[in-house]
């Protein structure tokens, strides 16, 4: 087996990557106004969490982490189905999909 990288990737690498992805997702969710983009940011955060689970599953030699990922995927799939439907509905109703314009439920 040939080495593609000079260093052996340790668990830390994956965790840092997951943290980076999660942060990108979180910040994106806060700063972007397009509903679709915000939705993708949420997906990014979910998958960052998945990556963390898998990393720890391997590191601790515990299949539980991988099992949880399946659940997450299922939940994410369901969320996508509902969320996309809502977004499509929003697009049909109005021209854009800026999150700040959709604030009928303000107090």
């Amino acid at each position, binding site marked *: 087996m040939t080495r593609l990288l000079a260093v052996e990737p340790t668990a830390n690498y994956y965790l840092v990557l997951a943290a980076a992805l999660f942060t990108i997702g979180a910040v994106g*969710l*806060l700063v972007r106004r397009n509903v679709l983009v*915000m939705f993708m940011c949420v997906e990014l955060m979910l998958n960052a969490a998945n990556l963390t689970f898998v990393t720890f599953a391997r590191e601790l030699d515990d299949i539980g982490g991988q099992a949880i990922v399946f659940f997450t995927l299922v939940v994410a799939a369901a969320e996508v189905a509902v969320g996309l439907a809502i977004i499509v509905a929003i697009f049909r109703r109005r021209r854009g999909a800026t*999150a700040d314009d*959709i*604030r009928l439920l*303000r*107090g």
Partner: protein
Amino acid sequence: MDSRDLLDLIWVVPGLPLLGAVVLLFFGKRIGEPAAGWIATLMMTLSFAASVVAFLALRDLPADERFHGYDLFTWIPSGGFQVEMGFLADPLSITFILFVTGVGALIHLYSVGYMHGDPRYARFFAYLNLFAASMLVLVLGRNFLVTFLGWEGVGLCSYLLISFWFERNSAAVAGKKAFVTNRVGDFGFMLAMFLIFARLGSLDYGVMNEGAADLAQGTATGIALLLFLGAVGKSAQFPLHVWLPDAMEGPTPVSALIHAATMVTAGIFLVARAHPFFEASDSALTVVAWVGAGTAFFAASIALVQVDVKRVLAFSTISQLGYMFLALGVGAYGAAIFHVVTHAFFKATLFLGAGSVIHENADGQDMRTMGGLRKFMPYTSIAFIVAWLAIAGVPPFSGFWSKDEILAKAFFADDYGLWAIGTVTAALTAFYMGRTVYLVFFGNERFRAATADVAEEAAPEAPHVRDHAGSLESPIVMPYEEPAPARLDHDPHEAPPIMVAPVVILAVLGAVGGLLSLPFTSLEFLVHWLEPVFEGVEEIHADSFQSAFVLSTVSVVFAVVGIGVAVLLYRRGLTAPDADPLPKRLPGVSRVLEHDWYVDEGVSAAVAGPGRKGADWLSDGFDRQGVDGLVNGVATLVRQAGGGLRRVQSGLVRNYALGVVVGTAALLLYLLIRAG
């Protein structure tokens, strides 16, 4: 049948008048005029017969077993609180039902004639029957709650009957006054029941008899005084006596029923029935005795100057009830009950006699416009005079024996103060009753219409038309008109036989009623009969026969002096309706007395002045600003907090997301700090 089986049927005694009341309430209109009265009278007579049977049955039992309780059904079955609808036949209750039904039946009979032509004839008899039934339930009750049921029934019926002629505002007001004043006493009765149940766990009289002696001194005093408050309200003792004079607004047979047989004797009965509590507390007994003595004197003094014949009798009832409480207070229960019975006889005679006089005097009740009626109403006047001698304490009439018994017991219990007040009051009693008799039946004839203008001149000074301070309606006593001017344009004549007969029977009873209990060994029938009830009560014995004899002589002398003064002053009647010699000689005193010692005015002023201010403060300061302010304050606080917090709900998804991020970060920070 065994006599105990017979006594199981004791519920028939109140049941019969109750049945009469129900029948007359539903079918009275259809039954119509004379029949309704006869049905009611028949029910009372049957009830009297049942009472006599009960008396004979109870007498067959050995003396120490004369307590027969019978439970009809369980009234309130609720866990630890069980109340039976039970009746108790013992010497005390049997004594009461005998004279309640007996005197009651005679008053019913009299009413058949008196109420002739009244548009609500049947209704009157329904109320009358209900009144008697309530009183019978009261005295026959086996526990405090059944007694209270009758107690409230009596209060209700008195309200209905006093304001029977409610078209007259004064009658409606008098009924309300009686009801409200009685409420004050009922409140004491109820609190006493709560206390009894809390301490003894039962309202049964049997439990009371056994448990009362073991109560703490303070508890016994509290229960006794609260019960006494109830008795004060019902029996019209100072300061709750104010309703009784105004109760004269009712038809005269009602006054007779209230004063003689039912209602006012309920207070005496209650104290006698609950005597274990009073025996357990010397201070309560002292209060009872002094309230009684004080009221006896106070009411007798007011009666001296009254011009309305029924008001004189009303105050005399208050005064006589004071004697009874005096007797109860010194522990002479037998003497008190004896006076209740004799008083029922002669006071019923007086009231029914007065009713006949008023009936024949074109409904005028003002004694200043009567006089000389002896010639026109011979039977009534003889009966009235007999009752007068009885109440004045002239031997051998019944009042002498019972009143003398009370005074002797007070003296030999070493309560010389009470004895002195009682003896002075006896003289006052003799005087005011003498004045009444002379103004009504003797002297010059002042009832003719010719004297009307004089009577009208006298009117503005008549005490019963004065205006009371404050917003209370003035209790006007005259029916239909204010000061009745004489307006008879024909000679008065004797009442119809149906009204004369009961009066005469009652007068005979009033004359010989003393035989029930003569103060000689083995002749004290009533006192001996009641002995099992008051077992354990210390008896008061005369020091010697001589001292008892001297005491009797003293009270007779006082009575004769009272009568003598009355005869001297009123022998010739009045030269003019406004020429009463007594107020002329003692103007200051009689002004106070004419205003009933300013009790009514004082109450009115207190209610209208500080009472009103207090109520205003409660309504505005306390309720509107305090209580409402608190409630509204809480509401305002919540509303303002909500108004502030609703800004958080901006509707911007990204704000929420920021909230989530900040929250998570804060949580993480907290966990890190705790872990580190």
